Every structure is written in C-alpha cells, then in structure tokens.
C-alpha cells in the first residue's frame, strides 16, 4: 500500500508548508504529490526537506502566489508534452524564439521561475539530482576548492554548496542580468555569503580567464543551441583535472528547452566529445519510474554527470 500524503509529510514541516500551499490552489495535485514523495528513499526525503526549508525562506509571504504559478507552469509543461509526443521534437529550437516567447516576457518569467522553485521540491527527479550532486561531488572535490556555477537560477544548489563544501570561493555567472540579480538576492535572503556574481556569456570565454576546480551546470545545456560548444568553451576556465557537474534533462519538453537529448548515452557522448572524461553518472526518471520504462515511453529523465577535464 502506498502511504498517504499526510503520513509522508509527517516530521517534514517545510515540505508540509509547501504541499499545503499547492493543494489549496490545486487539490487535484494530491495524487501526484503522494506518488512523488512515496518513491523517495530516506536520504532523498531528507534532501527534500532541506530544499523545502530553503524554498520556504525564498517564498516568504508570496507562497500562495508561488503555488498558483506552480500550477500555471505545470499547465504550460503539459502543452509542451503534447507537442513533444505528437512531433518527437521540442517546439522551439532557437535561442531567438525562446527569448521572444519566454525570456523577454517579464510576467511570464516571474510565473515560470516561481513554478520551477516548487518543482525543485516536488519533482522527484530534481531532488534525486540534488542528492546525487551532494553525495558524489564531495568524493572528488579537493579542500578549499573554487566553484563556478553557471545559471544558478533559484540559487538552491549554490546555497547548499556554500554551506557544505568548505569552498575557498564561489562564482556565479549568467548571461542574463535579471537572472544574476535574482540569484544574488536569493542567496542574500538565504543568508549565504561568499559568492561573487557576474553577467557572463559562457560562449565567450578566453583560455585562462579563470581557473575553477568545479564547474556546475544544472539545467542549462538544454537551453542552448550548441551545448557542445558551451562545454568546450567552459573547458577554457578549468584546470586539467578540474571537475564538471552537469544535470541535463532528456525527453523533457519545456517552453524554453531547445536542445533535445534522447538517451543517457547522448549526454555522456556530449560531455566526452567536449574534452571531458566521465567519472560517474546517474539517471533519475520523473516520479521514480524505472529508467528502461521511462526511456521507452519518452518520459523526462534527469541525467547527472561528473566528469574531469582532460588535457
């Protein structure tokens, strides 16, 4: 028997706060939330609560609106799912189109970003990816490492990295000044210091511009027209032996996903051909689906890769 939602939420006050907010505006989402929490093991549930605590702080007094925007975002995603399964491709394929429809529309972006914040807690593949990151990266990361995160968005991974990795420093880059601002404010709200923020296009990196020990890209590559060129470019700011963490969803239609990867092998090949050697990887299907089944049904899977920069 699947446990009930209230059983799953017992002893998890922050997750409960967020679930209550969502169910108030979207009672029909209960079955999804129940399933999504029931597939998580103990460490992943602990990570869920950790992320939820941060999301509650970030949400502040806007939780009700954020919950509405989560529902709105899920509706947009369902439209994209329909297109994806009908046509076998993402609806938009150029940055220009995504920019015109999504990035340049402030009202759209606000709702979308709110939606993605809650997805960070409620979509099991997102929490599994975070769990993979915090389990696997410490195994390879040296002491006092210098971290670079590209496109930190809601800032949760950057926040938790600053809190737990004993870093010498952290840098955050994004091509969008609005996003940079948002991440900076998020980190302030969370009370985390030690990160430097800058507007930077990762396609334009000169060799030796900076040397990082760990570069993190979570949910960035699928937004790019040429992710291989981006990875090759990033290689320019990494020393030989530095690590790359990538989290990229496959078969995952979204309004601003323009680069379709369909298999785990696609992702590994992308990273390898950009000059990295894969050290470990994990694949987490939405709602804890078995990988084989998710691939057959073309259900979204988050693929996480840790790779080392070759010479």
């Amino acid at each position, binding site marked *: 028997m*699947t446990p009930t939602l209230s059983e799953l939420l017992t002893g998890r006050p922050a997750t409960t706060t967020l679930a209550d907010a969502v169910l108030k505006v979207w009672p029909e989402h209960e*079955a*999804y939330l129940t*399933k999504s929490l029931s597939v998580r093991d103990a460490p992943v549930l602990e990570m869920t609560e950790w992320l939820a605590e941060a999301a509650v702080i970030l949400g502040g007094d806007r939780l009700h609106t954020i919950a509405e925007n989560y529902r709105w975002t*899920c509706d947009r995603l*369902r*439209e994209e*799912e*329909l297109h994806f*399964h*009908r046509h076998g491709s993402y609806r938009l394929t150029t940055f220009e189109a995504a920019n015109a429809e999504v990035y340049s529309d402030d009202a759209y972006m606000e709702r979308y970003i709110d939606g993605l914040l809650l997805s960070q807690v409620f979509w099991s593949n997102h929490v599994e990816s975070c769990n993979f990151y915090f389990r696997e990266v410490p195994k390879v990361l040296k002491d006092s490492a210098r971290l670079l995160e590209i496109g930190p968005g809601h800032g949760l991974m950057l926040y938790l990295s600053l809190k737990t990795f004993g870093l010498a420093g952290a840098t955050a880059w994004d091509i969008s000044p609005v996003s940079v601002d948002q991440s900076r404010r998020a980190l302030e709200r969370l009370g985390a210091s030690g990160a430097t923020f800058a507007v930077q296009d990762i396609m334009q990196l000169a060799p030796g511009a900076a040397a990082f020990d760990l570069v993190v890209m979570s949910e960035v590559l699928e937004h790019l027209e040429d992710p291989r060129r981006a990875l090759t470019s990033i290689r320019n700011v990494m020393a030989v032996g530095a690590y790359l963490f990538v989290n990229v969803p496959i078969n995952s239609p979204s309004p601003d996903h323009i680069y379709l990867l369909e298999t785990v092998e696609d992702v590994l090949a992308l990273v390898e051909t950009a000059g990295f050697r894969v050290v470990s990887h994990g694949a987490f299907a*939405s*709602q804890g689906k078995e990988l084989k*089944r998710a691939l057959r*049904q*073309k*259900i979204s899977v988050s693929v996480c890769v840790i790779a080392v920069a070759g010479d």
Partner: protein
Amino acid sequence: MAKSTSELHVAIVKIFKDVMDVEDIEITNETTADDVEEWDSLSHVRLIVAVEKKYAIKFSDAEIESLRKFGDLVTAVARKTNA
C-alpha cells in the same frame, strides 16, 4: 471502415496498458484517473497521442481536457473514425 465499439474498446485498452505500463488491471468504460495510479495528467497526454497516431485522428485541447472516463475516449475515437 466502421469498427464496432467493442473491437475499439479492446484495441484502446491495449494502447492504454502499453502507455501506462500496467498489466493486471481491469479497464471498463467507467474507469477514470482516480482508479489507476499511473493515469496522471502527463500520461493522459501520452495516451491521447498514442491513440491519435493509431487512428490518424486529432483531438482538440478542449477534448483532451474533457476525456475523463475511459469510455469517453472510446466513444470519441468511434465518432472521429466514422466521420
């Protein structure tokens, strides 16, 4: 060629089970998402598209929303393939 509704029912049950990845489960005209754990809004989209492909038909967004009972889907396919 018009197919009998019961033939259609059997064929669409097969598609349903394949899309939802379920085997030992009885599907009737009255079955809704509440009865099948795997039937959520996203698998509903995949079910619709699988049916569209099989019968070379297309559902409008409003139709997709309104098809809640399994039987509604069978009826809608029957209507579209007879038109």
